[in-house]
């Protein structure tokens, strides 16, 4: 699961996949989901990402270099999840869709997660409170 949140607008984007994450899938997420969602002509996306290893591979830096006009990237200080707005959304997700529940099949778990994500996408006011500390 990959996700990002725009702090001023509260707009949430996400993508899921069943295979492992690596730099290539991250680049694909940036290219296909994140940039189309947030980029507006004449502006730049300010992306703040945490220090997951696949966020910092050479391929990813190369991609950021190629898209310098559209996106600027900043790294959070290491071991500081409380500065990461997305972590709060994962907490919200856990509370809403997986906490204290039993799922028979992985598909049911996915169904529950996707329902929460769609809700977050559609009704950004439900997650507005989580973003308050970042204003």
């Amino acid at each position, binding site marked *: 699961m990959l996700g990002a949140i725009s*702090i*001023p607008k509260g707009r949430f984007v996400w993508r899921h996949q069943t295979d492992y994450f690596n730099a290539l899938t991250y680049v694909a997420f940036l290219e296909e989901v994140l940039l189309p969602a947030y980029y507006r002509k004449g502006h730049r996306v*300010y992306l*703040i990402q945490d220090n997951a290893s696949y966020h910092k591979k050479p391929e990813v830096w190369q991609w950021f270099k190629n898209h310098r006009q559209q996106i600027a990237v*900043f790294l*959070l*200080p*290491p*071991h*500081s999840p409380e*500065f990461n707005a997305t972590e709060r959304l994962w907490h919200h997700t856990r509370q809403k869709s997986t906490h204290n529940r039993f799922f028979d099949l992985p598909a049911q778990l996915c169904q529950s997660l996707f329902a929460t994500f769609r809700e977050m996408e559609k009704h950004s006011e439900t997650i507005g409170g989580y973003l308050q500390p970042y*204003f």
Partner: protein
Amino acid sequence: MLPIFAVGSRRTLNRLKALREQAYADGASRVVTRLEAIMQSLQGKTTGQIAQLLQADRTRVHAWVVAWNAQGPEGLWEGHRSGRPPELDASAQKRLADIVGSGPVAYGLNTAVWTSPLLAQVISEEFAVDYHPGHVRQLLGKLGFSVQRPTTRLVQADPLKRRRWMRYQYPNHKKKLTPKKR
């Protein structure tokens, strides 16, 4: 026999209301009941009626009214209740506080943490008084000790980098986000 009533005017009633508020805030429920009784008595209720209203003893209500008429509000305050004297007197408690304050190692025990069963043992050795561990905790609270626990903190995180992010870097990014005023 003539019924007895509390002596006072309408202003006394207001004063009693203020006193009742204060007693309520102090948690002195007995004083609140007595003040209520006097207020009722000022409004013309007999002691029997008041006793029924407040579910108090008839003779007690009579005694409160008499005390009010003789001494005013001072007659209604709580007196000194000695209670059962503690098994550890003040000097023993002070010595116990010294023992607790200087730690278990100083006392000659092979541990760094006081626990209430351990302290109960120490008390029974030092003062020949048997206390339940639960009561030991109460006693420690009275002596001004409390449980100390460590807070959670990420050891690997660099506080300098975190502060720099919080104070300078993130605020700067935010500034660029907000549209410029013209």
